[in-house]
């Protein structure tokens, strides 16, 4: 029958293209510990949910004998599917086809699915595994990258954009992930750089491996380009799926509600924070003591560890957490931690996610390197991000909140909606030692026993100012609460902030210090 014949023909055509670059290339891909592009999509999306588009697209290049070459699907797979039922648009570069190189039609497939994602207001996931521009296609290839960057920018803050680096991503190609919200990398598989080891060797004579130059660890620990680090592709996909559960489909919606769950009893909130403000503890334990099911999903875990960011749920509502980490560099604000926190605050604000800020910091990190690296400009990003954010902003001052650090960490003055403080809070212009040295300088200097006098004055300052009650007496703190009351107060604050509406003056856009 003719119809059956045509269906048969379609099936044959499909099957041929579905093999990508062929068995040999697939074997090579596997020998590098990598899955094929199609396997990756199947592993990430809900079973049988993937619908593929543009399977039959072919490249148009005619120069350099390219007209004799067939590149199945032009080296990239696009389509849409679901993750835990949430719709997502996806593209995956196929390294088995011409090294996943980006030519005109390859880029058109990517921009087609990007346009689709933006129009349908659904998240976009890009799996990058490409040798770079398809040199034979010349400026068309550059045009392709430019079209992608433009769409990344226009979609930014409208739909979530996730980049997954599962192979090389070099040269101009790195700027698409850099423009997206979250970058996922896998140990020994992801490689990102602007200029590769070979160029560096030619120009400078410096030898460095791809891994040391732009491997997954480098981008997770040193550059801050990556947000999620995994040891395997499987782990990476689990991270992506989990993230999708925490974020809304677009900026017009809220994240999905989950069944509320109490924190696990092993996180005893009364026993985490030492009384002495100079002693460390892990602030993530405080977060786990207040979030649903003690489930805290950390972002940028290995970078600028002196600040902790991530998602949790409060009574079923997705909530962004920003917390100083006294365990790392005393929890100071510095160039890197400011940059990390500010970006996350803006993410939460763009996607209607309330922000809970846990404060315990001695101030900013002193040093020539910090000043010269622009801690003024980078530190200002935190002030800007908190001030600008109109999502519910809830602050809990756990212990120290000194000086500029107090102002920056979602203080009342930057329009926190609720500021709570534990009885252990010390809200002051600076630490007691520093303050006493300045205020009582004369008494200390002229004393027969300067050290004894200093100690006495430090104690005097501590008892008068190292507490939450001065700030509470001015209304800068709304309530001084027991640690065990924290979850109750925060959950209530989130409930009453549900319809928060803050009019802002009209502007085209602000000028954050970046």
């Amino acid at each position: 029958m003719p119809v059956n014949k045509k269906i048969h023909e379609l099936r044959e055509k499909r099957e041929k293209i579905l093999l990508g670059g062929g068995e040999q290339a697939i074997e090579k891909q596997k020998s590098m510990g990598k899955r094929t592009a199609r396997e990756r999509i199947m592993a990430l999306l809900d079973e049988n949910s993937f619908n593929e588009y543009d399977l039959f697209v072919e490249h148009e290049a005619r120069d350099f004998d390219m007209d004799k070459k067939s590149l199945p699907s032009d080296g990239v797979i696009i389509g849409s599917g679901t993750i835990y039922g949430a719709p997502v648009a996806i593209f995956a570069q196929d390294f088995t086809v011409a090294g996943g190189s980006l030519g005109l039609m390859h880029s058109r497939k990517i921009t087609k699915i990007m346009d689709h994602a933006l129009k349908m207001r659904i998240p976009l996931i890009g799996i990058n595994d490409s040798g770079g521009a398809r040199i034979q296609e010349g400026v068309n290839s550059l045009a392709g990258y430019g079209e992608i960057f433009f769409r990344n920018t226009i979609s930014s803050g409208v739909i979530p954009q996730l980049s997954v680096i599962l192979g090389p991503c070099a040269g101009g190609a790195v700027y698409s992930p850099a423009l997206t919200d979250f970058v996922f990398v896998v140990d020994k598989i992801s490689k990102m750089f602007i200029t590769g080891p070979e160029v560096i060797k030619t120009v400078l004579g410096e030898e460095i491996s791809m891994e040391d130059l732009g491997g997954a660890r480098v981008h997770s620990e040193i550059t801050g380009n990556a947000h999620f680090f995994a040891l395997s592709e499987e782990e990476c996909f689990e991270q992506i799926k989990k993230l999708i559960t925490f974020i809304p489909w677009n900026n017009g919606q809220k994240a999905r509600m989950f069944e509320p769950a109490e924190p696990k009893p092993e996180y005893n909130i009364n026993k985490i924070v030492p009384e002495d403000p100079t002693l460390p503890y892990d602030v993530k334990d405080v977060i786990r003591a207040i979030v649903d099911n003690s489930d805290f999903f950390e972002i940028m875990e290995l970078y600028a560890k002196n600040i902790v960011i991530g998602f949790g749920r409060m009574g079923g509502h997705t909530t962004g957490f920003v917390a100083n980490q006294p365990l790392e560099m005393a929890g100071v604000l510095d160039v890197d931690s400011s940059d990390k926190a500010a970006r996350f605050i803006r993410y939460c604000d763009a996607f209607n996610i309330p922000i809970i800020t846990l404060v315990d910091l001695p101030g900013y990190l002193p040093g020539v390197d910090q000043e010269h690296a622009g801690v003024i400009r980078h530190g200002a990003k935190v002030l800007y991000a908190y001030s600008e954010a109109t999502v519910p902003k809830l602050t809990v001052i756990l212990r120290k909140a000194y000086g500029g650090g107090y102002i920056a960490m979602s203080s009342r003055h930057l329009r926190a909606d609720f500021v709570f403080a534990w009885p252990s809070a010390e809200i002051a212009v600076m630490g007691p030692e520093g303050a006493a040295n300045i205020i009582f300088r004369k008494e200390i200097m002229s004393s027969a026993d300067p050290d004894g006098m200093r100690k006495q004055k430090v104690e005097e300052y501590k008892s008068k100012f190292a507490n939450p009650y001065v700030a509470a007496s001015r209304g800068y703190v709304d309530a001084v609460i027991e640690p065990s009351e924290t979850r109750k107060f925060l959950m209530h604050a989130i409930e009453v902030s549900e319809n928060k509406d803050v009019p802002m003056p009209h502007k085209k856009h602000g000028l954050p210090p970046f």
Partner: protein
Amino acid sequence: MSKNDKLGFLNINTSLYQTRISNKFLNRKPYQPADPRIILSFIPGTVFDIMTEPGQNVFQGDDLMILDAMKMKNKLKCPIDGKVKSIAVKKGDKVSKGTVLLELE
């Protein structure tokens, strides 16, 4: 927080905080004021030409070297009047940014 944590102390506004110290902080370069007598490469590249030699008197604005970098021939000009004490590189050397090229006295 585990018992094996390596904790150090960080001084912020004369208070000592017990905490983990990052590698970035431990490896930071101590500040050294710039010395105009030491000419450093301002860009990574290759030494293309050297127009002076040790012992020569040089004046502010004189061309000292040409650095081939980023497809450009970049002239290195003398920042002060002085005498060339030593030249640390030779033609064809590849240098990274901040390499000492030449010293004046």
